[in-house]
């Protein structure tokens, strides 16, 4: 399971291109920076008020220099601190090139559910609704199925949604889908998984892209 998360994060890291400004959600997305090539210049935004955070400092972490999950980070050259109003101003107004968030369910319209499981888990919405609303591209990362085997890529989200029609790509340990005009296109099979596996574990209908390869 730790392995699956790393596989998803590694694949997702390929979506991060030179010059991008990227917001990473907690969970699997937070593993991505480890896989990004040093030659790629990217600025990570953290919604608590930091553009351009770098790795966890090895010595003397600073309680006042943290990411949105409360863990210590560093700041890179060209980075800036700002208040929460400015931070979400960036997010809502489309300045974040790419947001990579964990997901609980995604449907074929790209509707995202990732903040609440009623009666079970109510962590709160945090900044997810605004990232989903404003980011130029939103990639949803998740394990393909729930622990009990039920699919997470669904015809209709049964969990309360975070935002409508916001996901542009889904990456799981089995496959990569693109959402185009409210349709899911299977564009890539992950190593070790067949088209059959994906079909058996995906509730939503999807097209098979001509670019599909394995």
């Amino acid at each position, binding site marked *: 399971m730790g392995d699956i998360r790393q596989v998803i994060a590694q694949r997702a890291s390929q979506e991060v291109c030179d010059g991008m400004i990227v917001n990473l959600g907690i969970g699997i997305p937070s593993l991505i920076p480890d896989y990004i090539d040093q030659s790629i210049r990217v600025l990570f935004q953290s919604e608590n008020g930091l553009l351009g955070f770098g790795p966890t400092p090895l010595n003397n972490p600073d*309680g006042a220099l943290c990411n949105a999950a*409360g863990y210590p980070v560093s700041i890179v050259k060209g980075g800036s601190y700002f*208040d929460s*109003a400015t931070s979400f101003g960036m997010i809502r107004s489309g300045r974040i090139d790419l947001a990579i968030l964990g997901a609980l369910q995604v449907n074929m319209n790209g509707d995202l559910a990732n903040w609440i499981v009623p009666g079970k888990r109510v962590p709160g919405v945090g900044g997810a609704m*605004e990232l989903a609303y404003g980011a130029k591209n939103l990639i949803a990362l998740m394990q393909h199925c729930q622990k009990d085997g039920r699919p997470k890529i669904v015809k209709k989200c049964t969990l309360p949604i975070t*935002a*409508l029609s916001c996901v542009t790509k889904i990456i799981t340990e089995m496959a990569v889908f693109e959402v185009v005009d409210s349709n899911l296109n299977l564009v890539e099979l992950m190593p070790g998984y067949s088209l059959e596996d994906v079909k058996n574990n995906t509730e939503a209908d999807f097209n098979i892209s001509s670019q599909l390869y394995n």
Partner: protein
Amino acid sequence: MDKFNKVVDYEFVKSLFFDKMTLLFGGFGGVGTPPSLIDCLIDSGVKNVHLIGNDAGFPWIGMGKFIVLGRAKSLVTSHIGSNPVAGELMNKGALAVEFSPQGILTERIRSGGVGLNGFLTEVGMGTILAKNKPVVKIENKEYLYEAPITGDIAIVHAKKADKFGNLIFDKTARNNNPLVAKAGKITIAEVDEIVDMGALDPEEIIVPGIFVHYMVPSGGINWKWVWET
């Protein structure tokens, strides 16, 4: 109140707190939440407090320390996942929690602080958080109306201030503090270092002292951060 020396002691601050007050607090996961003012709040014995802030902190960090005592009546916030006790209180019906998207909550506090009457947004439309919110139609397009927020008291944590209350913050401990500072009928800043008027560069001031009513010297962070435990 002496506008040109706003430093008071914690006993005085205690006398400002009252049962059923609406209390705005700065900070994000406890980072930027004023530690000594939280202790002062706990010591004051007030109850049925209406809290408004980014999150519920951790049970031993930030506003979480007060929330776990069960003396908050309600909480308007974006996130309580880091404080399981807040979730338990909510599920028991002992704490009324209203969730708001994080940046929308900050903007509501800003709107109240700068004397506006709320704003329209598309964020949250079509979600369960849109329930009970007025929908306003402008040129045939619908938006959610988000109401302004102010508080009886607002508490923030600053790194440095002069005696007029001009505030400077510390890295990501700035977060929503500059907005919260503007939205209190009474705003109290806990400050790490208080200097004379004229000792700050006027360009570096983040919150002009006009928004601040009282200041107390900080006793420093008195909790272990998550990554230290």
